[in-house]
Each structure stands twice: as C-alpha cells, then as structure tokens.
C-alpha cells in the first residue's frame, strides 16, 4: 500500500497549473487527495506527475449574488458541514457534507475533487445535480460553464478536458418555499453509498428535480417521476414512474439494487413533501 513514484509540482497560478498538466504525459491534478491517495496506494492510479492544486488562489473562495452562491472547488466537506461557508440550499449541502466519509477525511477532501473524480457512489455529484448547479471550469483558453448534467458523463468520467481545472460551482439559491430531501443508503456511517435519493422542490414554479445517485454510472435525473410529482401524483402512479426511471438509469440493476434505489428516492420524496 505504498504509492508508486511520481514527480510533484505545486503551482502558484492557474497558468502554471495548466502548463504543468498539459506539459507532462500522465500528469494528474491533486485536490484534497482523500480518494487519490488510496488509489495511488492500491496502484489503480499511476500518474507521472501530481499537480497539487492546494495553493492556487481563489479555489477556496465563496462568493454570493442575489440568485446564487459560488462555492470554490477547494472548499472542504468539513467547511460546508460546519456552516462556515454560505449555504444556498437551506441546509441540504450541510446535511450531505456531514454524511461523507469521516471527519478526518472531510477536513481535507474537497467538493471539486469529489466531482472531478466522479465516483458513481459519491455524494456531491448527486446533490449538485439535484440542486441544478453549474460547474465553472478554467483552461488555457479561458473559462467555461457547464451544468452538472453535462459535466458528469459516467463512472469516473467527466467532460473536463486535459489541462482543465474545476474552479467551483454556481449553486442557485433555494427560496423560502423550497423543500429538499436526501436519503443515502450505505452499509455503515461514512461508507460509500449503495444508493442515493436526492429531491429538490424549488417551490418557485420550477419543476421538481429528482436524482438517483450511486448507480453504476453517473447520477441520473428521473424525469418521469419528476413530472408525476409535479402533477401531484402519489402512490402507485408515482411508484411506477420511479421504477421506469430507475430501470433507465441502471438497466443492469438486480432486484435488490432496484429495491434500494426505489427506497432511497421514495424516502427523499417523502422528506421533501412532508409537512
């Protein structure tokens, strides 16, 4: 369980970071390292160069406007858990953060690192997708914005191009009439999820967003269930819509996993719609 040999660079500016990532075959970006270091020890990752993003300026910043809050990619789970950064989600981000791994991991693991890795069982991709967040991405040619739906392509696969770095996420502010639900099924506190249900009811006329996370691929929006919920459906009609969406999100799921997925999403909906 020792990492293989690699070179190490700690750029002080974004242009230096782009150059380091693009200038070396096999270079990888290092965020909080709480997933990458185990992967190095297990030898499932073997970078030639680690480009440490920890000291880049601005990645830990949180900025607010009337409509949204931008959370820097380098903000740690613990900072969100403790409420030391502004929360656009009326408690959802804090709740999700507190359930990620263990405190010693949350002290260093970052929201941007978790999304960039795109582990299918990770919490942030599902949560940010439910919140309709937009990723801010910087590269040698400038910045671009990508909704989470377009950023997350599959298991451990994102739309980030070589040399690009996640700067942060624009998360829309939820209004006073909004509701959310979050249900994570894991074998023990802090373990990776077996299934995640995430629901956001924006309450401002925008349609509900229902997300199934911890599939074998990327987290998925459940469109038929969301439409059914928007029509005020419940019971068997909503359940049938959920089962169809779950089948589409993870076609290979066995009956046990289908039941897990149905349970987490139903519980998240119940949370979001309860009085």
């Amino acid at each position, binding site marked *: *369980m020792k*990492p293989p040999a690699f070179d190490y660079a700690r750029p002080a500016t974004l242009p230096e970071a782009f150059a380091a990532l693009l200038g070396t075959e096999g270079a990888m970006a290092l965020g909080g*390292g*709480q997933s990458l270091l185990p992967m*190095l020890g297990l030898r499932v990752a073997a970078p030639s160069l*680690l480009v440490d993003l920890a000291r880049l300026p601005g990645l830990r910043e949180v900025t607010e406007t009337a409509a949204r809050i931008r959370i820097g990619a380098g903000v740690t789970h613990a900072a969100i858990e403790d409420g030391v950064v502004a929360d656009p989600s009326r408690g959802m981000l804090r709740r999700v953060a507190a359930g990620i791994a*263990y*405190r010693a991991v949350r*002290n260093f693991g970052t929201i941007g690192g978790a999304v960039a890795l795109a582990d299918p069982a990770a919490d942030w991709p599902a949560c940010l997708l439910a919140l309709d967040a937009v990723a801010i991405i910087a590269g040698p040619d400038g910045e671009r914005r990508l909704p989470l739906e377009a950023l997350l392509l599959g298991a451990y696969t994102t739309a980030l191009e070589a040399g690009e770095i996640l700067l942060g996420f624009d998360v829309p502010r939820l209004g006073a009439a909004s509701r959310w639900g979050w249900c994570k099924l894991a074998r*023990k506190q802090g373990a990776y999820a077996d299934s995640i249900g995430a629901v956001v009811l924006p309450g401002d006329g925008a349609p509900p967003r229902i997300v199934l996370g911890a599939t074998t691929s990327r987290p998925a929006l459940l469109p038929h269930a969301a439409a059914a919920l928007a029509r005020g459906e419940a019971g068997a009609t909503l359940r049938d819509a959920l089962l169809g969406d779950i089948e589409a999100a993870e076609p290979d799921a066995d009956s046990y996993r289908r039941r897990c997925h149905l349970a987490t999403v139903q519980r998240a909906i119940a949370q979001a719609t309860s009085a």
Partner: protein
Amino acid sequence: MTRINLTLNGRAQHREVEPRQTLADFLRDGCDLTGTHLGCEHGACGACTVLIDGLPARSCIHLAVRADGCDVRSIEGLRDDPLTVLLRRHFHEAHALQCGYCTPGMLVTARDILRRFPAPDEATIRRELAGQICRCTGYVGIVEAIRRAGAELANQPS
C-alpha cells in the same frame, strides 16, 4: 527529493522527502515517531490519525510533501495536552484498549470529538467514531471513556 519545512510536535523540522512518501511513513521511518500506527494504509481504519494544523487527518493518505509549511502533531506531541491527558485517564479507567493498536488514532479522534461536541451522548460518539476501527472490538469501553471524559469536562467550572 523535495525539501519540506514543517513544525512537528512543536519543533521546526527541515527535511528531504520523496514525493511518493506518505506523512505516516515520514513520521514513522523518517522521524522515528512510531506512535502513529498503520492499519489499512488506505484511509479506512483511522489508526494513523494525526493533527495537521489542528485538524484530524489520516496520515496514510497524506503526502509528506504537502505538510510543507504545516503544523503537524502526532500522538507523541499530545503527551502533555490537557484534553489528551483527561482522555488517557478515562481510557485507562474504562478499559478502552486491549491490544492498543488503534489507540493513538482513537485518542486523536476522541480529542476532536470533545472539541466539537460538548458532553457528547453515546449516539454522537458512535457516529463520530465510525471511521476508527478497533479490531479487538472494544468499542463499549472506548465510547464510555469518551462519554465520561466529556461529562467530566462539562462539570468543570470554566
């Protein structure tokens, strides 16, 4: 090799490390601080937990090069820390260790629990200890020791 400058258990250190070296191996092999124990070496068991800039960290999944400029405290550096002294007494009295392998990480984490949760109840302690594995399964004593230490702290005049 990369040069790092850090404060380790209160003393300035200037060292050369390989980028691939973990903080845990740096502490144990480079600094002879073998109180930091290695169990799983992939961040799952918590035995190697130390403090980096005051925050609990798993030293097996931190690179030593990233400790450059940081204040690192291992279990050896907590010998006279008042909270650790209190916890050590309650670990002793509640029989909160058998083989002792997980104990350094348990103490560092228990200290953090008491700093974040005044007089934590059993449910809180168990939730917060979920990342610390005791393969002797001595959790009843460990949880009780932390609960008693928290209760004693809460009863002390501040």
